[in-house]
């Protein structure tokens, strides 16, 4: 077994060697390096063929029309283009947008920007399992609501929202529905023919493609219009100008093609590994799962080890790469806003570790992680005054803390 162990696949994934090999064919003088927008020679035609093949592969994973795929630099840009682009285009119909407090910052900060421009945004509270209550969403919809933006799979707690049901609600009211699918494409089935999603953000590097490339699905029937955020040569039907990065696009296409082929069997394997991990951890004292276990993407496990601070735990887990909901590393000292939004106490939010399993995770690695975590959590609890107090039966909420 090779150390350190990578268990942070929701942050990014390595590029699949099959993908990397293909990408290399679109860079060098011997390769197909042309500008896909060059219409007058073979170099351009070859590059264009490759881009269009990739577009078909990406569209196929979503069961969409290739013409509905717009290349971007990644999911953050896709979120920006979808939300700002739709808001700016449809603002005469209304200036109200609905999203959720557990969305990715690429959505939340974009909404904040629109608020500064005079839009009104409703930020829904999720339930304690991380799911959005459809009744609450419906109640938030108004006559001037133009857009609902809800992520498919949450990046921290892995819960899967019911985008099919949300799409029915929005479509019935002629409200546009944007879905950030950066964490779900290739992991949870998507079907744009059946799901009434109007805009859907995609990323390559979360599913073994390269960083720096993504796409936005923009529905054609019924037609969705966007105001471009990037102006230039009119690429991508005017929605996103800029020379297409052929090798990146080819990489994304290949990653999506592989995902479509292997998703079902890969998910089965991930669920086995994740259950093995959870079964190895859940019998420790004061261990809490964050987010619903059933409505959850296969590779994610987010666990709070009460009375142990997340960053110190991560330090003890130096042999493996995981992430923490504790933000002690940033200047803010604020723990994960996602965990707070689902009502986790600060202690538990600070004590959380996100494990994300992926294509190259092995059973041996899982067992090593379980063993190390058990030992280190016990060691750090021996160091923790909060653990002492818990053992003495002190209710931590009754203590007057000298906050700083």
């Amino acid at each position, binding site marked *: 077994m090779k150390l350190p162990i990578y268990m942070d696949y929701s942050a990014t994934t390595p590029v699949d060697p099959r993908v990397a090999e293909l990408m290399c064919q679109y860079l060098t003088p011997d390769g197909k390096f042309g500008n896909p927008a060059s219409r007058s020679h073979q170099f351009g035609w070859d590059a264009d063929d490759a881009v269009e093949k990739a577009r078909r592969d990406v569209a196929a994973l979503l069961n969409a029309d290739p013409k509905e795929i717009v290349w971007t630099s990644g999911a953050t840009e896709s979120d920006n283009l979808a939300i700002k682009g739709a808001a700016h285009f449809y603002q005469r119909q209304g200036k109200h947008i609905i999203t959720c407090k557990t969305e990715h910052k690429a959505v939340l900060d974009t909404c904040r920007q629109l608020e500064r421009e005079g839009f009104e945004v409703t930020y829904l509270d999720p339930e304690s399992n991380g799911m959005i209550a459809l009744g609450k969403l419906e109640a938030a919809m108004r006559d001037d609501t133009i857009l609902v933006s809800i992520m498919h799979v949450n990046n921290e707690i892995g819960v899967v929202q019911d985008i099919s049901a949300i799409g029915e609600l929005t479509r019935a009211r002629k409200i546009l529905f944007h879905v950030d699918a950066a964490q779900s494409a290739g992991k949870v089935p998507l079907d744009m023919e059946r799901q009434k999603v109007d805009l859907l953000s995609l990323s390559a590097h979360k599913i073994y493609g390269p960083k720096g490339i993504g796409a936005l699905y923009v529905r054609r029937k019924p037609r969705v219009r966007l105001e471009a955020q990037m102006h230039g040569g009119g690429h991508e039907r005017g929605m996103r100008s800029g020379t297409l990065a052929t090798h990146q696009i080819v990489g994304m296409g290949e990653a999506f093609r592989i995902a479509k082929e292997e998703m079902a069997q890969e998910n089965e394997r991930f669920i086995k590994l994740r259950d093995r991990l959870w079964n190895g951890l859940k019998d420790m004292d004061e261990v809490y799962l964050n987010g619903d276990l059933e409505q959850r993407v296969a590779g994610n496990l987010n666990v709070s080890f009460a009375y142990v601070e997340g960053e110190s735990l991560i330090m003890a887990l130096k042999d493996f790469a995981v992430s923490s909901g504790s933000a002690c590393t940033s200047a803010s000292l604020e723990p994960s806003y996602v965990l707070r939004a689902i009502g986790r106490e600060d202690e538990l939010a600070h004590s959380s570790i996100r494990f994300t399993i992926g294509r190259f995770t092995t059973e041996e690695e899982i067992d090593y992680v379980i063993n190390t975590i058990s030992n280190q959590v016990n060691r750090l609890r021996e160091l923790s005054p909060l653990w002492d107090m818990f053992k003495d039966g002190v209710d931590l909420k009754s203590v007057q*803390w000298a906050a700083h």
Partner: protein
Amino acid sequence: MAYSDKVLDHYENPRNVGSMDKEAKNVGTGMVGAPACGDVMRLQIQVNDQGVIEDAKFKTYGCGSAIASSSLLTEWVKGKTLEEAQQIKNTQIAEELALPPVKVHCSVLAEDAIKAAVQDYAAKNAKS
């Protein structure tokens, strides 16, 4: 962000971890920080009749730098008078451990902890 060797050493081999009887008259307890902020330090000192700190123990819930700051503090206060112990500045701790700017609050917390422990000891012994 990389931790300094000294932080790693204290984190991996913390000195003077433990608890003292907080009701004992010769023990001063300082507990500072809050779970909401991600760090809580409990520092306890045992003081002899001459006002010298004979022993010190700590427990800390917090990041590696917070654990290291409190561990280092227990080493420093032992053998010091209460007066001297109160002179310890957070900047000295931050410098010794080479804490980066985002971790300076850990050393501030350690300074607060020793001050709180001395105060607790003084309050207990003022009445007699």
